């Protein structure tokens, strides 16, 4: 079975912590796949392995059938993988507009020479990038704050800006690390709609990590549950919700 993203037996440990152990996970084109698990389960670590920020100790990750071993982070972005960050990694002292233009820049063929001499191609690319960035900001309802510094936004807007920036690189696969963290109930409900709209408009496949069960249950087609670095359950939302092992893992955390 090959989908858009496939992980086979991925493991990584940090000193004494086995953050991931033999994780296998499959995401098919067009799906929204959920990844849930208690704090410290290894969800963010998994994202870091997929984006190449961390290198797994063992295991294989393929994207669109292609083995990602040894592929650098920025190359993976070019292959169509984008992500948002749980701990918000915005370009703080840059404007909202600039934040969204950077990924577009990353894909444009402009060189410093073209920039320095303002060659016509550079001017054209600049206009195109700005137009597209503004369109994305409009899509995520951020156009009003386009000229503000990213660091000055409220958390809800910053989360949306993370989304806008991730979409700017035109990804096929979007990794969302707790996009609802810090949002209130209304914003979270809106987020679910935004995710559906994104899938509809951009045809993006998503892997969604969040602690908000309602959001995950509502949006995801398929859910994986991670606990202490291991997949302990997987299946459609109803199945996972009723799985005693999952309940155990979450209750164990509460207790």
């Amino acid at each position, binding site marked *: 079975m090959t989908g858009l993203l496939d992980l086979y037996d991925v493991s990584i440990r940090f000193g004494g912590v086995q953050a991931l152990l033999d994780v296998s996970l499959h995401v098919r084109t067009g799906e929204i796949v959920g990844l849930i698990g208690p704090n410290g389960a290894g969800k963010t670590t998994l994202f870091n392995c997929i*984006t190449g*920020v961390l290198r797994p100790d063992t295991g294989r990750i393929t994207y669109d059938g292609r083995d990602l071993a040894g592929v*650098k*982070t*920025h190359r*993976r*972005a*070019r292959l169509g993988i*984008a*992500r948002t*960050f749980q701990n918000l*990694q*915005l*370009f*703080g*002292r*840059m404007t909202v507009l*600039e934040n969204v*233009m*950077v*990924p577009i*820049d*990353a*894909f*444009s063929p*402009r060189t*410093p020479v*073209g*920039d*320095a*001499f*303002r060659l016509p191609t*550079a001017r054209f*690319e*600049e206009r*195109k*990038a700005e*137009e*597209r960035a*503004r*369109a*994305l900001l*409009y*899509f995520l309802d951020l*156009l*009003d*704050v*386009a*000229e503000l510094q990213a660091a000055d936004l409220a958390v809800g807007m910053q989360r949306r800006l993370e989304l806008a*920036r*991730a979409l*700017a*690189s*035109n990804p096929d696969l979007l990794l969302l690390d707790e996009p609802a963290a810090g949002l209130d109930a209304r914003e979270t409900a809106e987020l679910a709609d935004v995710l559906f709209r994104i899938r509809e*408009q*951009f045809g993006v496949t998503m892997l969604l990590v969040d602690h908000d069960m309602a959001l995950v249950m509502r949006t995801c087609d398929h859910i994986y549950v991670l606990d202490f670095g291991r997949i302990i359950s997987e299946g459609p939302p109803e199945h996972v919700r009723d799985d005693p092992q999952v309940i155990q893992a979450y209750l164990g955390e509460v207790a």
Partner: protein
Amino acid sequence: MTADARVVRWTAVGVGIALGVLIPAFLSNFLRSLASDAAIAGLIVLSLVVLTGLVGQISFCQYSFAAIGAFTVGSLVAGHHWEFWLALLVGVCFAAAVGVLVAIPALRLSGLFLAILTIGVALFFDRFLLAPGTWDSFSGGTSSWRPGRPSFFGIGLRGEYAFYLFVFGILLVACLLVWNLRTGKTGRVLRAVRESEVAASTVGLNLTAWKLTAFGISAALAGLAGGLSAVRVGSASAGSYDFLHSVIIAAIATVVGVGAITSAPVGGMFLLFVPEIMRAWTPFSTQWFPFVTGILLIFQLVYAPDGAVVDSERRIMRRLHPPAPPPTADDTATPERVLARTST
């Protein structure tokens, strides 16, 4: 930026350029040569506007890069009778190449350790590479190179005013190019790398390539300054490019602020004219200049962290340019249509 603010900015730039051209016409040749040196030092400050302002990296070896430019021009023009322009080009490229080389460890090191490394580089140049006996065919050994003044499209640059106009013109062009870089993709990308490396790389930026590019550009600017100063002074000797010069220029760049292009001419004038003012009008000799710079540096970091020029520029701009009203969407190209067009 509002139209008003833009008018003010360009008027100010125009007036500045006009003054820069006209004032030296009425000065003594000595002061004109100082003005040339100030323009050349301005190029080095500009190299720090790129490196520190955009990438967030401090360097204490900019004068070592300048030395590469100076000694390349010196040895090629005076030693091998090359055409000045060709020698200058080689010098700038050579400096850029060394800049890239120095940057390679930078890819792994955080800012602090890179700063130490640049001191190491500066001392390696001063004390070893350019010392007599190490590489005399480049450094000229104990007798320093004496390259003559070039001519510019047939116009001789022997006169101090002509030469000043020449270097001032080069400074302006360099400032314009860096301005374009900063406002274009390059500036945006470099600032993104400075703000968050992990985010920059996950959106598709090749950190290695961009950092090397920034160091290369910065070193090239310093190399250009060096090549020009070799023909300004008419000689290239190691003492003019030592560690202390690099430290002082880094201090000045910090004091005037590395966030604005205007800092380049201002910083250059600071380096050359403040000592002159001290000598002429205060009881302190020019040798107190580094002391004054050090005190200013300490005070400004404790009290005005963005630098004097940036601070005052921002204050002026804020007065002229109250917070922008929310921009309205362009009706002719509705966002949906643009998305549909560009997202394929």
